[in-house]
């Protein structure tokens, strides 16, 4: 009896002694603490997430930088040439818009390395969704300057048959979804596309680009949460360029930027120097590897600077200082990458001169050709509303054709009546 009592007693003691150390919650085990301590907020002592880089602001190698994916001569010169092409397209197309040749344009100045560095780490099997400031990604994938010019002019050879604003490119062959104007809607789309890749067991991911301003949209939160819960292979690439039109990042969020949000959604996240093409390339290659092999999302925040205006409808000198702009322009991502080429003796002054001269000629030729091309024909007003044309659109099309033929001049002269 006594033994029995002792046994009971000792068992009870063991149970009491075993400290309940966690809560078995439906969402997972939650550890207990006796400390009253809050995380985050204005009184937090946690430092912000560091920014991964491999070259400094002048383009010189940073000692000890991890570079798991080295960039060889061919890849480096191709990346550099694409960035240079992007710069020249930006300059000349911007001027063309200012001359009234088309209605709208947006430049990538300051963010060339983010677009090209990340695009170079993706494959053509990966589906790409962009916002509107990533022409560099399309150019890397093979979208030609001529195709861009046709689209901006909205002529009959342009993607989209003149139905969308300039810069809303798209290409089925290049696995590049047509750009959509409303901010952040591409984020859940990319998760859906990634889920499709997962269902079809394809060894590929969806890559989606957006700005830090777009990350304030509800769609951003929905997309990252979905990607995380569904295990969708998607690489989120945020271009944190400091400005959403005239709203600075300081008014866009209070936490640790965009990458800081990733871990709380259960997403592997990295902050990278968006002006360091090699760092962006390496971060994206790693992100892609994780996304595809582990079927999960990865978040990249590329810290860069929008050196140009938001769009041709904007004048950024009204809301930011010349000093700030000059400081950032001095860290020009293209020059920083050029330094890397020069240091390896992969590039010289003559090559530089020839490249820029030829590109300028090509861009001017493309714009000239696009301007001469007639606009999309009248019939294109009615096609593609549905896969097959419904009776009421057929009726309206026939009436519009008959009217335009009977009354020459009713239809603008650059729109062919057919």
């Amino acid at each position, binding site marked *: 009896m006594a033994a029995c009592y002792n046994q009971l007693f000792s068992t009870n003691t063991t149970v009491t002694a075993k400290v309940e150390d966690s809560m078995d919650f439906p969402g997972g085990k939650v550890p207990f603490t006796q400390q009253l301590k809050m995380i985050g907020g204005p009184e937090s002592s946690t430092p912000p997430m560091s920014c991964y880089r491999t070259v400094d602001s002048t383009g010189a190698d940073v000692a000890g930088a991890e570079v798991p994916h080295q960039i060889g001569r061919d890849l480096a010169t191709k990346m550099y040439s694409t960035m240079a092409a992007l710069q020249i397209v930006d300059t000349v197309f911007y001027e063309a818009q200012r001359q009234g040749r088309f209605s709208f344009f947006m430049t990538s100045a300051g963010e060339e390395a983010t677009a090209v560095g990340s695009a170079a780490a993706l494959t053509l099997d990966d*589906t790409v*969704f962009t916002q509107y400031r990533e022409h560099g990604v399309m150019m890397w994938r093979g979208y030609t300057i001529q195709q861009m010019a046709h689209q901006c002019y909205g002529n009959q050879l*342009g*993607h*989209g*048959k003149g*139905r*969308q604003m300039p810069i*809303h490119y*798209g290409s*089925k062959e290049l696995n590049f*979804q*047509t750009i*959509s*104007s*409303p901010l952040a*809607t591409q*984020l*859940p*789309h*990319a*998760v*859906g*596309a*990634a*889920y*499709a*890749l997962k*269902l079809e067991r394809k060894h590929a991911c*969806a890559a989606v680009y957006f700005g830090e301003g777009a990350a304030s949209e*509800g*769609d951003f*939160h*929905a*997309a990252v*949460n*979905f990607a995380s*819960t*569904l295990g969708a292979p998607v690489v989120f690439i945020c271009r944190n360029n400091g400005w959403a039109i005239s709203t600075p990042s300081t008014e866009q969020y209070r936490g640790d930027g965009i990458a800081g949000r990733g871990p709380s959604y259960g997403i592997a996240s990295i902050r990278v120097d968006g002006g360091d093409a090699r760092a962006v390339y390496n971060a994206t290659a790693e992100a892609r590897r994780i996304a595809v092999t582990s079927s999960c999302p990865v978040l990249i925040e590329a810290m860069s600077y929008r050196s140009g205006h938001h769009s041709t409808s904007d004048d950024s000198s009204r809301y930011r200082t010349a000093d700030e702009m000059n400081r950032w322009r001095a860290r020009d991502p293209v020059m920083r990458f050029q330094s890397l080429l020069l240091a390896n003796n992969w590039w010289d002054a003559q090559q530089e001169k020839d490249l820029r001269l030829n590109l300028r000629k090509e861009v001017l030729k493309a714009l000239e050709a696009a301007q001469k091309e007639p606009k999309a024909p009248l019939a294109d007003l009615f*096609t*593609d*509303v*549905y*896969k097959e044309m*419904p*009776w*009421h659109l057929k009726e309206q099309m026939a009436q519009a054709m008959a009217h335009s033929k009977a009354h020459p001049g009713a239809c603008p002269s650059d729109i062919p009546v057919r």
Partner: protein
Amino acid sequence: MVTSRLLRPASRLLAASRPLIAPTRSVLQPAASLPAIVNRRRYATPSGVKEVAVRDALNEALAEELESNEKVFVLGEEVAQYNGAYKVTKGLLDRFGEKRVIDSPITESGFAGLTVGAALAGLHPVCEFMTFNFAMQAIDQIINSAAKTHYMSGGIQPCNITFRGPNGFASGVAAQHSQDYSSWYGSIPGLKVVAPWSSEDAKGLLKAAIRDPNPVVVLENELLYGTPFPMSEAAQRDDFVLPFGKAKIERAGKDLTIVTLSRCVGQALTAAEQMKKDYGVEAEVINLRSVKPMDVEAIVKSVKKTGHLMAVESGFPSFGVGAEILALTMEYAFDYLDAPAVRITGAEVPTPYAQGLENMSFPSEDLIAKYGAKLLRV
């Protein structure tokens, strides 16, 4: 004149009966007001016709399409583990697995966007909204992304997606759960919009929606989910689909054309019988089935025969489906009208919660019959 029709005298409304509305008051969650559905399917009659509830017809359509095409998947809130807030997706998770019947976090804009993305990537998603009232959170994805991408991409980027869920007013769920979105979606180029009434409509239209390469909005009616309808042998087969843009004459008549949709079809049929009994007139009842494209030909053909048109719907009167039916009739069959066409619609107020007021806010059989008689001057 028109205004007086829109603001109907309350006395007429009070006289109207609402037999199909469940008398019980629901709690907050609309799903909770549903009677348990236990084996709605009945025994087959000798002719092969079966009684099938609308809910089961929709379930059958989803199961058949999931079975026949591996690109099809269903995503929405509560669609998997819980078998759907209205049990439309009952059993689908067990049968097709969690990769094809997927529960979603509560983010309408998010899961609508996700399914649009999957459609852009070549899958054929079925995006379930717990009710179309909540789809307003996602309407940018439905309109700006799903409906317009094919056109704006120059025809290279189709979006084969089906948005479905209950639409229109239900019983005792007040303004934010009681709205008919037919005219909202019906006004968007690039979308196809259908509104089934019977079980055959539900199965045939939903299957057609999933197969259609365009984005389609399937506006079901919560109050009809548990209603059994006879289903022909042909409709029970897995190859049964209904064409879009084709209305169905549910009742032939020579005196008055009633064009209607969704639950109002049943009310119009009852009203037509009442008009025959009370006034000796024969009303033709056209079930639109599809809001966009709309079967103008069927309407015109009927009006040529009857000379009188009445549109019956449960949406708000302004800019509604009824307005569209009247305008199209004016454009294509004005010379055949012997009297001005009329519309019967929901009242122009946010749907009230109080049952008496709610009853007064929507068309009733009696109201339809009385307006029919007034139109025919009998």
